[in-house]
């Protein structure tokens, strides 16, 4: 499998981790909110992209590499993670947790996959594949019409004791997907701190082999990494517990195409022998 890197002309950042700094425009939005003049979802998102340097980052870099720590809070389970992404739609991530081994997942522009130490390898389908596509594409960062059929301001709502702009997102269904039946899995909500402007959380329904699962993600402790702010703590809250990710580093290296090759087991499953994926690579 050979991946051509010449077309990786832009960074694909992590969807929904939009490091939003408060700026004059957002301050205006805050004031507008106080008088019931709430900005549009598009305005909140666009201003956030500009204010944080994310749009500039997307235009100047092709890849992002992150690493950090992971902890299943209260259970004594700790480990590390690393994540690589590259435009337009490549992703690889590995989480290592003590006693559990390494879980790897990725998307090569066509195939979304998981190699789990206990479940084995499998290729994603349906809503799980759609969600993987979303997290791998720059459209999901920019919230473009190419990826979302709905980007809608829902108003002001309290999230984690913060007053936030609530934005509803509905991703476009992929080929072969029942649009109506998959609506819940294509819908997510983002919460932008009214006062500070940061994205501070999301609520969504995750598609998994074990069924659909409601998930709340809480973002915080934004820090600057070479001109772009990222939330360095991300806590996943579910009925079974809290999983905390802490980003220690974020870098913007040249694209390493080998990172995104399908593992041998996934190639055996899909029957692919050569590089697949985005046509413009």
């Amino acid at each position: 499998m050979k991946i051509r890197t010449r077309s990786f002309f832009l960074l694909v950042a992590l969807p929904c981790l939009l490091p939003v700094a408060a700026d004059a425009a957002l301050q205006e939005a805050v004031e507008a909110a106080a008088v019931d003049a709430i900005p549009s979802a598009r305005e909140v998102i666009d201003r956030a992209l500009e204010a944080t340097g994310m749009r500039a980052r997307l235009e100047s870099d092709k890849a992002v590499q992150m690493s950090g720590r992971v902890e299943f809070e209260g259970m004594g389970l700790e480990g590390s993670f690393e994540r690589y992404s590259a435009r337009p739609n490549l992703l690889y991530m590995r989480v290592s947790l003590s006693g559990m081994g390494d879980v790897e997942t990725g998307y090569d522009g066509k195939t979304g996959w998981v190699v789990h130490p206990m479940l084995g390898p499998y290729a994603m389908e349906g809503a799980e594949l759609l969600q993987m596509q979303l997290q791998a594409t720059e459209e999901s960062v920019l919230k473009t019409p190419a990826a979302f059929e709905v980007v809608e301001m829902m108003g002001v709502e309290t999230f984690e004791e913060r007053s936030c702009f609530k934005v509803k997102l509905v991703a476009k269904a992929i080929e072969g997907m029942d649009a109506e039946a998959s609506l819940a899995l294509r819908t997510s909500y983002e919460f932008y701190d009214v006062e500070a402007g940061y994205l501070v959380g999301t609520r969504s329904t995750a598609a998994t082999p074990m069924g659909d699962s409601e998930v709340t993600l809480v973002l915080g402790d934004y820090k600057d990494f070479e001109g772009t702010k990222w939330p360095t703590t991300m806590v996943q809250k579910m009925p079974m517990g809290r999983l905390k990710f802490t980003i220690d580093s974020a870098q913007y290296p040249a694209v390493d195409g080998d990172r995104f090759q399908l593992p041998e087991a996934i190639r055996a499953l899909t029957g692919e022998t050569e590089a697949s994926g985005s046509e413009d690579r």
Partner: protein
Amino acid sequence: MKMTLDRWIALWIGAALLSCHATPAEAEPRELSEAEAVATFEEAWQVIHETHFDTEFNGVDWEALRVELLPEVRAARSEAELRRVLGDMLGRLGQSHFALIPRQARPAEQGDDAVERRAGGLGFDLRYREGQLLVSRVDPGGPAHRAGVHPGWILSEIEGQRVEEWKDPLGAAKGLGERALANRIRRRAEGLLYGSLGEELELTFQDASDDPLQLTLAREQRQAVAHSFGDLPTFYLRFESRDLDHASGKSFGLIHFSNWFLPMVKPIDEAIDRMRGRDGIVLDLRGNSGGAGAMTMGTAGHFFEQRAELGVQELRGSEMKFMAMPRLVNASGQRVTPFQGPVAVLVDETTGSASEIFAGGMQSAGRVRVFGETSAGAVLPARTTVLPNGDSLLHALGDFVTSDGTRLEGRGVVPDEEIVLTRADLLAGRDAALERALDWMASQP
């Protein structure tokens, strides 16, 4: 990244939820303040209040129980006294997977000693039947084997403690059923038998002729792999696979493993790869007390071409399915067809938690035939939470219901064919459940 983490946490939690029994180590007593005692009790009470899958708390008035026990907590002046009250609180639920793991037993507290403290054993297994602790298996070459101990012998005394005197106090105190009492007595014996390497223990057996026999055996390294998982005490994992020829001319494979944890994955996968050409596979889950629930899905996948539901884990306000995930690639990364032949599962009262999810789930899916004796009936998926005093609370978050609607908690997996373990069979060197399973597989086309 959000979406990635969404799905990943689900995978992790599916894997990380514990379906196993923890055997707490003996704890050193420590005095504690009223404030620490109350804070620890309140945290334990609140965690269960917020996370128990049953908002009726299995019929217990949870609010009233707090009011009832708080005075005892305030009066507690030692960890032992507090643990007694907490044990009372957890025991009132009458459900599995509610337990207190003393901080001294947590790997984080024990450091490098965590493994060494329980690394020694005497090389034999036990089952409790009709008021007697029977030697059910002897490790070849181990201390017991070298001393002539034989399956079917009765272990009547350990370091001067008479086993027959345990039954009434343990059973009466907890109102235990037969299976639970058998497990409690067996675990109490194991708690004495396992320990530091080199220590000698005085044991009294009754041999095949019922003659008493006193032996002094020194602990040696267990034939097992030590494995840590979060705040749980160290597990000692055993794996065995072998080929079995049958009088019919057919040949079968047998896989036995003690827990569902990561170090067992590769040996199981490789064993199944070796057995793909066999006429049937036996999964012996006797003595398997559970582990990480997600592993049952990957193991089940060796026997299904399509995803199949084993059951549902019912949480408060949500649920998560246990799915057989087809294993279409072998350990060498080559495309394969999952095993299509007959599969037999062996269970008894020592088969617990994740093993029951697997056995009951596969049984309800119609993929296996189960032989032996009814399993433990202790199957609630759980997690641990560290309390203010450093103890770890194991608490169930969900109930498990098989795909045909059977709740296994308190019931257990009922074998399709009940084969009772007897002392006579042990003395004769027979494994009646295995023999019957092989006969059944031999009869299959």
